[in-house]
């Protein structure tokens, strides 16, 4: 769920814009030019993933993948997510123009944290990568929901009800996301394990044709 225009108090909207700009600059500096297309891939995948509906009982939820983006990109994840959100806002109006900073913080900070978590604890075996990946995926969504609720609640006590509903609505998403992230990480660990290594991002394999 993205915050739309006019919901947040002006000070919060402007403040989160400034914070996101700083984080974006940091994330962009840590991204080398060879990695740019990969970051663009994750931005675009971040976008496409939000179009995938997963059934959950009578309703369906769509994936948010902040945790997966973090696991794949590490410190560049913030850049990828901010760009994905910019495009979503420009094209689809998912998330308002003036709330872009807040939305980037809400998704990007959990992604950075989960990326760190995944890279630190992923271990060697595929089994362990799946467990840690699932944890990172679930945690990423849960943290994003918490930040959404906190941002909404910054509007004053009138917004507490909306913040609570938003938090509750993310519980099924968190469960689905944890399961799907674990299985996606498992798939990648089997099919293209080098994607999960930050070394792959730092030194792309040399092709000799």
């Amino acid at each position, binding site marked *: 769920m993205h*915050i*739309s*225009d*006019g*919901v*947040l108090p*002006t000070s919060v909207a*402007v403040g989160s814009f400034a914070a996101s700009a700083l984080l*974006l600059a940091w994330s*962009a500096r840590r991204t080398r*030019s060879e990695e*740019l*297309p*990969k*970051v*663009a*891939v994750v931005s*675009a*995948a971040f*976008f*496409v*993933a939000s*179009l*995938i509906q*997963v*059934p959950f009982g009578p309703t*369906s939820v769509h*994936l948010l993948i902040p945790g*997966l983006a973090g696991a*794949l990109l590490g410190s560049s994840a913030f*850049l990828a997510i901010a*760009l994905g959100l*910019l*495009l979503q806002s*420009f*094209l*689809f*109006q*998912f998330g*308002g*123009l*003036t*709330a872009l900073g807040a939305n980037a913080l809400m998704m990007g900070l959990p992604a950075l944290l989960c990326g760190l978590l995944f890279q630190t604890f992923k271990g060697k075996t595929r089994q362990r990568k799946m467990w840690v990946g699932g944890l990172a995926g679930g945690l990423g969504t849960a943290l994003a929901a918490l930040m959404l609720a906190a941002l909404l609640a910054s509007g004053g006590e*009138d917004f507490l*009800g*909306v913040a*609570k*509903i*938003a938090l509750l609505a993310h519980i099924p998403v968190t469960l*689905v996301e944890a*399961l*799907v*992230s674990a*299985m*996606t990480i*498992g798939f990648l660990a089997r*099919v*293209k394990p080098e994607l999960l290594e930050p070394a792959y991002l730092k030194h*792309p394999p040399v*092709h000799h044709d």
Partner: protein
Amino acid sequence: MTEVLRLELPLWQVPLLLLLPLVLLGMAIYALRRSLRQRSVPGEEPDWSVPSLEEAAGHSLFHRWEVRCKLVSLLLYAFAVASLQQLGPALAALGLSLLALLLARTPLPRALMRLLALSGFLTMFMIVMPLSAALRPGDTLVVFAGLEWLEFNLRGLQLAATIAAKGAAIALLSEPLLATAPLPVTLQGLSRLGAPEMVGQMVLLSHRYLHVFRQEALRMAGGMQVRGFRKRTDLPTFHAVANFLGMLFVRSFERTERVFEAMQARGYQGRMPAPLATSLRSTDWLLGGVWLLLGLLLVIFDRWVG
């Protein structure tokens, strides 16, 4: 007015005041969604589900406006609108956005798409806010006889309506802001304004990949359906979705790597050679000034009403 006013209404008004607006809203959203879907079904029609920002032919005021000036003044104006707190000024802003939309003459379905994307979030506000807004002195509570536990705070409803009006105003404004110049020009304008050039390049790359990916995703989803895959709430479905996502990543990474190597082989060094002719004319400044003045007037109007 320091007391909380309780308005008690008879029970038979529940369908009239509560259910009718909800049903009407639901029907409006449903009709909008249907009409947009039908529009995109015939093969020759453009696919609006991923609206392209690139086709920006037109000769309106907004098309001729210099891109940097447009970005700065409309973004500042958007922040001014977002800071409004009263319903009246927010509705005035909505009216101004409609006017801008008419002046810019961008395709209407896209503006409707934007409103549709907003509708879920804003509907949640409209339903939850009247029920959960904190009680303050001077508020009016509406209760229905027989349903005393359900208290509707009119101030909450007003707050939600203000938010909806502001959200819709800025959403409609993004059409004149973004769809009246090709995306590369808008991004170049952003980087001329100080945004890192790499960010603009990345947005362009992702924008390209977006369409490629969506095609790929649709193709894969079609393949799954043909093989008899149906979505359910069970582990195999999650497994299939996870593999789908993983495959999307793998294929896209490989494809992107090839494309990027090809780009580098052709001398790509982090920027596309596309000179942007920029000359700020006095009409650009004038137009920017007018929008900033409008934003300022709205804010003054807002404080004066409140």
